[in-house]
């Protein structure tokens, strides 16, 4: 048997209560007293506290040794304590611990560590709940701040896109003048040396025009000013120009060019944005030719029908390929494999970003598989519809 002094008892159970046989509080722990406005000693236990568990237990029942109790202060109902009853010759002892109310609408009690027994883990739970509230507030504040920054960034992006679109348009007009005049001049008689210089002007002008067109497209997409315009088209119309131009370019580079299509697809009339589909395909084929020095460029087109019909395009080359790290960010604007690629092959790094966005606008998708040094396969799928009339409607043209 261990005998504890009142100080020792208070150290282990800071919220203890000693009650006489007649029901008067004889002593109480410092924690209970700290939360009370007046001295508890000498007051009737049942006037100060109600016994929640065991429900409606009388004093004799409590004193007879019902072990587990839950009591609540009558005036400060937020003060709830649980513990055990020990019978004494002259009454009984309630060895109690605070039971903090963790609900959000609970009246706050200013607990101190000293309110809890050193062997009571509920203080940790209480503190954890308090800290969790604070952390959630922190997270909420951070989310709000990030959202604010996101809105500001989006707004700046729209402003930037509008500015780029405006500038690109303004630059393109005089550039067309320069290119037009270069073309006219090139048809005139002049010394070869001057003609060579003029060709440099024309080539540089065309490169600048491509760049401006890309910027304009990207800006239009970013600012939501690009529309998808659906028309009737056949695959023959879609790929005719690409086949002619890039077959020739491949021949010039000594590459094999193949275009593989299905007979059934070639005979169909589709509904979709042929202009944008051609833009994506042209970009991918152009890249394939550009980045391949030997081997082949193979384009395949087929219809896939998993539910709704869609056209699947793949462009496979035996070119320089793409490293794993670059592949992950390849479709982001201004990304090329590395800066030496830009120097060697030219280009803006906007093409694939535009392709990805155009695909997304047409509810399609684009991906790439590649091995550095062995080539790449770009694949994109665009949902289309079948035109039931087996003819192309006349008079449809692209606006803007």
């Amino acid at each position, binding site marked *: 048997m261990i005998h504890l002094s009142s100080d020792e008892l208070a150290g282990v159970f800071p919220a203890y209560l000693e009650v006489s046989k007649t029901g008067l509080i004889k002593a109480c722990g410092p924690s209970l007293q700290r939360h009370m406005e007046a001295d508890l000693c000498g007051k009737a236990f049942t006037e100060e506290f109600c016994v929640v568990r065991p429900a409606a237990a009388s004093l004799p029942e409590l004193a007879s040794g019902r072990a587990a109790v839950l009591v609540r202060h009558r005036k400060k109902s937020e003060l709830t304590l649980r513990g055990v009853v020990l019978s004494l010759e002259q009454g009984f002892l309630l060895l109690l611990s605070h039971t903090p109310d963790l609900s959000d609408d609970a009246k706050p009690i200013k607990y*101190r560590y*000293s309110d809890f027994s*050193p062997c009571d883990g509920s203080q940790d739970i209480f*503190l*954890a709940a308090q*800290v969790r509230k*604070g952390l959630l507030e922190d*997270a909420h504040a*951070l989310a709000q701040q990030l959202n604010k920054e996101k809105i500001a960034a989006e707004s700046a992006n729209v402003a930037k896109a509008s500015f780029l679109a405006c500038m690109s348009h303004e630059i393109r007009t005089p550039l067309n003048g320069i290119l037009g005049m270069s073309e006219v001049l090139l048809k005139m008689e002049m010394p070869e040396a001057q003609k060579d210089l003029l060709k440099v002007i024309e080539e540089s002008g065309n490169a600048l025009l491509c760049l401006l067109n890309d910027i304009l497209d990207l800006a239009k997409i970013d600012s939501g000013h690009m529309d998808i315009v659906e028309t009737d088209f056949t695959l023959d119309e879609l790929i005719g120009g690409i086949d002619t131009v890039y077959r020739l370019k491949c021949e010039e580079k000594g590459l094999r060019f193949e275009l593989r299509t299905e007979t059934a697809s070639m005979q169909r009339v589709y509904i979709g944005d042929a202009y944008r589909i051609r833009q994506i395909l042209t970009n991918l084929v152009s890249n394939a030719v550009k980045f391949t020095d030997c081997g082949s460029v193979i384009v395949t087109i087929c219809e896939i029908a998993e539910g709704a019909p869609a056209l699947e395009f793949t462009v496979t080359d035996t070119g320089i390929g793409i490293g794993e790290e670059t592949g992950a960010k390849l479709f982001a604007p201004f990304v090329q494999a590395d800066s030496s690629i830009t120097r060697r092959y030219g280009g803006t790094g906007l093409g694939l970003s535009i392709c990805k966005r155009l695909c997304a606008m047409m509810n399609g998708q684009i991906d790439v598989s590649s091995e550095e040094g062995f080539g790449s396969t770009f694949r994109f799928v665009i949902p289309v519809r079948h035109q039931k009339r087996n003819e192309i409607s006349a008079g449809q043209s692209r606006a803007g």
Partner: protein
Amino acid sequence: MYGMIHKAAREFTIDKIGDDAWAKLAAECEVGSEHFISGQHYCDDMTFRLIGKIAAVLNLTTEQLLLAFGRYWIKFASEGAYAPALDMAGDDLETFLSNLDRMHASIKSTMPDAVLPSFSVSKAADGQINVTYRSPRKGLEPFVTGLLQGLLARFNETGTISNAPAGDAVVFHIKRASASRVA
């Protein structure tokens, strides 16, 4: 260390040199983000890199920075997510210091990866307070001095703090000059 330390370092630095300078400093330290999450554990290397950089930018020695940051920490922690942990420790300096170990034991339940120091309080020969500090982290004595200065301020007290090594511990002697306590 947990993100609350980094958040405090961020606020401390912004107070001194502003948002833009902080953003530049954070980028140079490669901390990954200008924002930290209180309940997230970050590697010590990054924390010390950050502290070193802040000291350099503020033209302070590491010791001077730790001292100032210790003082700031008490103010910062009193207002953030962990304010309840501090409030529970007590309403006067001695009680608060006596409960530091209990506070750290409880905080450990919400920050399981935290490496928290241990403090024990005793009465010094001159009747003042001795705080014995033990930590697996070395070299943070100026930070503890700052913390104790911050606590004196929290309880509207003034005083001087000195320290001396004692075996594997460091004993901080708090000589209180006045005690206009807040109840």
